[in-house]
Structure formats: C-alpha cells, structure tokens
C-alpha cells in the first residue's frame, strides 16, 4: 500500500534568503565600524580635545608602527601561517643597521660604514630574517609557531648581544628622517602606512598573487592543484613581512629618536590582537587588511581615550581589557557570525 502526497506545484526553488558570501564577508569587514563610532563618540564626550586635529594626528602617528606590523602579520595569517618574530625584527633591523654605521664610541660595532647605507641595511636585515623564517618553515617543514618563536628570542638576543643592551641614540639623519618628516601637513609615517595599506588592500583584493595568498590559506592542497606556486608565494609573504617589520622599526626609531634595546618588545600580542579583532582568522584564508586596519584604529582609540579620561593607573589595565572584550562582543553581535 502506498500513499501519494498532494503534489506541490513545481514552484520556484526554495528561496535563498541567506546573505550571499561577499556581502557577508564585507559585513564582517565592517564589523568594527560601530565600535569605532561608539569610541569616537565616547572620546568626544570625555574631552573635546579628542576631536582636535592634533590629537587625531597623534593617535594615527602613534599607531603607524603597529599598523605596519599588523599589515605584515595579517598577510601571513591570511596565508595560513604565523610570524611571531616580527616584534624582534622591529628592534634588530634598525639596531644592526645603525650599529654598522655609527662610530664605536656611540656603541657602534666599529665598521662605520657610510651612513646613507643605514636604511638599505635595515630593510636588508628585515628581508633576510623573513627569508630565513620562510626557509625553515617551508623547506624544512618546521612548525611556523616554533620557528618564529625561536627567532623571536634569537633576534632579540642578537640585538642585546650586538649593542650590549645599550640604546643607540647617535642616529644618522636618514634614519631620523622618516619618523619625523611632515609631508603636506601630515607626518610622513602616516602617509607611508596609508600608502602601504592601500597597496596591500589592492594586491590582496585585486591581483592574482594576492588572491593566491587567500587560496593558500584556505586550502593549501587545492591552491597547489590550481597551479599556485604555494611555497614561492608564501616565501614572498614572509619576506614582505620581514621588510614591513624592518620599516616599522625604522619609523619607530625615527619617531623616538633612538633604538631602544627593548624596541618592539611585547608588541606581538598587540599585533595579533589588532589583526584578530579586525577579523583576520588564525586559521588562514579569512579576513581583510581593511578589517585589520580597523583593529589597529580601535586599539589606538581605546588607549587615547583612557589617557584623556585620566583613568586611575590602578584600574587602567582591567578597563582596557574589558573594553577590548566588549568591542569584540559588539563585532560579534553586528555580524552575527561565530568567530574562529
């Protein structure tokens, strides 16, 4: 005995009311915008100084080095890898470059190379570190976490070894320039970051090699099958990461007027926080540089507001952490998606 249900007319297929992919992804990108708006409002209420162009410029300039590291880390994370050693490169690259250039009397190594070499040397160190990380991780198949953690320690150790733990403050003019110059009324470092982020967003959004990074992070085997030279692309990414970290070190050196022995120390946590708050996934293949930039700005605003509000030193850290957690929940609520 069989039964037949009334045939429903061959109507249109079940409506697909779900948001389509890119739209959702874009939403996720903008997840932090409400948080930023809330922060700006709160800041303006707390102290009118907050909205002054001088203050905004300061906030932006203070975040430039962090933002370059976040740019580097975000690209590496999107490619499904990891680099902890960036924070040490921020210190070592300028320290080594400067030490090679300045006289021994100012804590240099004694080589006293021509001082115009400082910037190229600094970038070269960053490049070399990135390339070496890439070599160990990609060729020898070592864990990225552990290689770069080891490198984090080794590079910091090298810097202390080379400088004897001294700050270097007799800097060549070229090194000081970038961190201090003002172009068209804005600090040069803001321009540089802006331009690099624009390039990064364009490359990752609109160019084959940039998209390849997403593909690799999303599914390495599939990327390989699609003809992407996975190792070559990732090696480039590590090298770019090292270069960006060296550049960040250069900007920081210029801005602060010396290479501190602890320059960059402890930054990597903040770098990850900004990237992940900005929607870049630790699992690879997900997130955008725009989101990461929003993450950087959120952290910068929180810091600035806490300072302006004069929160007591005793509770400032707890409040800072709490605000980050709340910003995240906000982001979660607005996108409605679980994070990972």
């Amino acid at each position, binding site marked *: 005995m*069989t039964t037949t249900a009334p045939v429903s007319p061959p109507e249109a297929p079940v409506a697909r009311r779900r948001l389509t992919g890119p739209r959702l992804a874009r939403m996720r990108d903008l997840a932090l915008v409400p948080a930023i708006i809330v922060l700006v409002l709160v800041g303006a209420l707390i102290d009118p100084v907050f909205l002054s162009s001088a203050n905004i410029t300061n906030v932006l300039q203070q975040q430039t080095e962090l933002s370059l590291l976040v740019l580097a880390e975000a690209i590496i994370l999107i490619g499904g890898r990891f680099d902890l050693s960036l924070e040490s490169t921020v210190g070592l690259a300028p320290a080594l470059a400067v030490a090679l250039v300045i006289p021994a009397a100012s804590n240099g190594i004694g080589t006293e190379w021509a001082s115009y070499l400082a910037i190229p040397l600094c970038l070269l160190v960053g490049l070399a570190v990135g390339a070496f990380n890439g070599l160990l991780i990609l060729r020898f198949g070592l864990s990225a976490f552990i290689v770069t953690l080891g490198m984090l320690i080794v590079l910091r150790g090298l810097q202390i070894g080379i400088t004897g733990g001294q700050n270097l403050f007799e800097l060549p003019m070229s090194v000081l320039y970038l961190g201090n110059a003002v172009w068209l009324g804005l600090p040069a470092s803001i321009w540089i970051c802006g331009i690099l982020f624009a390039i990064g967003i364009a490359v990752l959004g609109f160019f084959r090699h940039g998209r390849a990074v*997403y593909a690799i992070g*999303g599914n390495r085997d599939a990327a390989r099958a*699609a003809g992407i*030279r996975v190792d070559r692309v990732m090696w480039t990414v590590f090298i770019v990461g090292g270069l960006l970290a060296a550049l960040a070190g250069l900007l920081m050196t210029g801005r602060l007027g010396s290479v501190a022995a602890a320059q960059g120390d402890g930054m990597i946590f903040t770098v990850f926080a900004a990237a992940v708050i900005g929607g870049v996934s630790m699992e690879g293949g997900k997130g955008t540089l725009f989101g990461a930039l929003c993450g950087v700005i959120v952290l910068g605003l929180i810091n600035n507001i806490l300072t302006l509000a004069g929160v007591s030193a005793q509770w400032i850290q707890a409040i800072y952490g709490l605000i980050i957690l709340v910003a995240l929940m906000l982001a979660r609520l607005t996108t409605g998606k679980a994070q990972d």
Partner: protein
Amino acid sequence: MTDVLTDAAGSGAAAPPPAVSAHEITKRFGATTALSEVSVSIQAGTTHALVGRNGAGKSTLVSVLTGLQRADEGTVAFGGAPAPAPSDRDGWRRQVACVYQRSTIIPALSVAENLFLNRQTDGGPIKWGGLRRRAGALLEEYGVDVDPGALAGDLNVEQRQLVEIARALSLGTRFIILDEPTARLDATAIERLFGRMRTLAAAGVTMLFISHHLREVYEVCDTVTVLRDARWVLTEPVSAVGHDALVAAMTGEAVKLTEVAPRSVPDAPPVLSLRALTLGDAYTGIDLDLRPGEMVGVTGSGSSGKVSLAETLGGLRRADSGSVSVSGSAVGVGVPAALRAGIGLVPEDRHREGLVPLLSVAENATLPIGDRLGPAGVVVPRRRTAVAEEMVRRYDIRTESAAAPVASLSGGNAQKVVLARALSTDPRVLVLINPTAGVDVRSKESLLGAVRSAADQGTGVLMVSDELDDLRHCDRVLVMFHGRVTATLSRGWDDAQVVAAVEGVTSEGASS
C-alpha cells in the same frame, strides 16, 4: 567517439602517440605500495575508464598524472612528449585538468573565484563584476544553479562537486580526469554531466573517468583499465568485457555479485514515528512510520530536504516543530539523545562529520561506544582493538591494521569505518545518508549486506540515497520534493518512476 583501440603496452609505431601514457609507474607511501609498475596509455579522443576496488591506487595514479605527486619510478608522457617538470605547475595545467576525489574547493572564497582560481585575470587587476558574470555564464552553461557571488563554503556537497566539475571542464585542456565525479551527484546531475562529457568527446577531448558504478562505465566510456592491489590488471574496450568479468578482474575472484534477495518485514508496531516534522525551509509536515526490520529509502533532488530530515533524526539538526519518537517515547534534542534513543547515523560528508582523520580506525569506529569498552570510563585498548578488528573483518575494511590512522585509508574504506561507527551502538534505527558514495562494487555489496543484516535483526533502516542500486534494497522508497514527501513507491518500482517523481514531473504513475 573512437573505435580504434590500441594496445595499452604500445606496439603501434604507426599509430599516433597516445594522448597520455604512464609507463611503469611505481609509487610508495612509506612501506605501502600504492602503485606497482602500472602502465596505462590513453588514445587521444577516447574516454577511458579506470576501475578498481577501494584502495586499488586509482586516485594515486590520478595525482601522478596531474603532477601533484611524483612517481618513485616510471614516466608520464603527454602526446608523446615527456611530462613537464614537477615544479612547472602551469605546464601540467596546460596538459591536464582534473576533478579530484577530495574537494579542492576553498570554502572562504566565492564560487566565482573558485571557478577561476589563479586565472582570475590575464594580467592587471581583477575585475570582480566581470569575473562574476563569467562565472555566472559558466555555471549556467553547466546547469549549476548557484549564485557565483556566494561563499563556496555555504554550498552543499553536491553543489561544490558541480562547481569543481564546471571548473575542470572549463579549463579548455584536451585531457580531463574525473575522479569519482558522480559519487555525490543525483541522477539528473549525472545525466547532465554525461551529456557534457559526450559533447567533449565528440570534440576530441580525451577523458579519464573513475567511478564505482560500472553502469556508468558502460554508458560513457570506450575503454577500461582495471587496477587491483596497486597493479595493472587489464585494459580492454568496454564492449569486450562483460560486467561480471569486470568485477572478477577488480576483485580477483570469479564470484558473481548477489542479486537483491526479496525480504519480508514482520508486522509490528513502528520503531520510529515522525509526526508533522517541520524545519524551516528544509522540509515540512513529514509523517512516517518505520517498522522494526523495515528498510525505507528516501530520495529526491538536491534541496529536496532529504538530508536535513535525516540529519534531524540523527540529532545534528533540530526540527522547528513536530515530533520524533522511537518505540513510542519521544527523542530528545542532540546526538547523544538520539544515540540513547537508539538512532545511529551515517552522516553525509565523511570528511566533515564522519571521521577524525588523525585517530585510528579502531578509535573512530568505537567513538560512540567508549563506555562499553571498559569499566568506569576506561577504554581498554585491547578490548577496543578486538572490537575494531571484528568490525574490520565484518565490513571488509581494507586497512593495514585497526591501529592505522583513518586518514591513510582510501575513500571507500573510510566510508565503511563511518558505517561501522554507526552500527557500533547496535541501533534500533539506522539512518544513512548516501552510504555508498565512493564505495566499490564489492564493498558496496558487503556494506549494504551489513545494513540488511542489521535490518534482519530488527533494526529499522532509513536510507537517504540518490543511488537506485541502494534504493533497490529498500522495502519502500519515499520521494521528496521541495521539502515534502510527494510519492511513496513500494517494492517493484522501476527506475523511470523514481526519476519522474524526483523531478516532480508526475507522481500518479508512482502510486499503485
């Protein structure tokens, strides 16, 4: 289609060079030999079938032919010229396109980008609008109804498969490999694929087609190569080798496949009852009574809601309204409740929900019965191994040992582990979703045999499947269309009835 078939080992000095030839390929993984001195050559313009049991080495041969893996010994040539260097991925991609057995869809990217991965643009920045339009046109051409802007991760298994096929076919290469493309497609989609393949063949494209459905081999292929235990066994025109001979070549034993024996179901109160079960857009008002020992098939086209229904029963989803009860008592929410009520589930996607790749076969198969393998929550390894070895034997799982990680198994054998897991709890109701996808003929038989013997011992079986061969084992078959059961076919249906009901064309003919 070409009728001229040439000796695979090659004796035709006069004949044009084969489109592809693999010579004496040996490939080892550790001490496992996946391919042992296998030689295959495929004449240009033919459609060549590669068959063999699970783990015979078919996919390994594919990865060697596409340059993803390098053979330990032997050479590959395309059109008489040696294959590109291993690092020259573009070179390989000009020679061969492939639908791999494992998904190469990148979930976080859009469908359009997946289709044009690494060729989004010929140079210069990517124009996303144009890319989506091109993707839309391509998908339409292949009859795939998905939004090119959607995230690939949001597609269901079948849609992903269609996207992969569309991608491979659109690459414009003269040689295309399809590794079990039909395992996850429903009948209409398969028909569309075959139509497409015939057009390509007519245009002189060479194809290597892998499937466990021998019927499909006879339908679209010109020649067939059989692999067994990593070795080449035969290469023949399909017309020259009968079904039984093919099975014998694959299995190495001349035992015929058994016919589906008729069975009777004793009258008894239902073991599983669904009443007005409804879930959002997926399915509406499902009523069903399943008697102990009864095997009920459920089929329908993509998005008919059949999978959601099965997943609801297994506890993976939660219905909006309606009730599910086993032997009269309501089933709670969640998998543990379903297990407790006696419902076992073989989920749809073995990679996603079926297996923990790093854990051993034994451990995967015994995951739900950890509490029975020792006192007070202890899992006694020896007891686990014993139980697992019994399963390996009963379900004919090809593995080095029960302790091997399940990730090292071939697709079909992995599927058997999932079934073993579902049956490990001795369920009163067994719910299966496409249980034989990617399973070889002989294993399919043993797998369905295991399901049948469970049913014979009183387990109610609900089998969601697109495969008519699976459904033939069922005592009745429900056809779903847009979330409703639109037809019920009792034993003795013919294929056309099912196809018609699935298409929603008519259901009158289905009732008796």
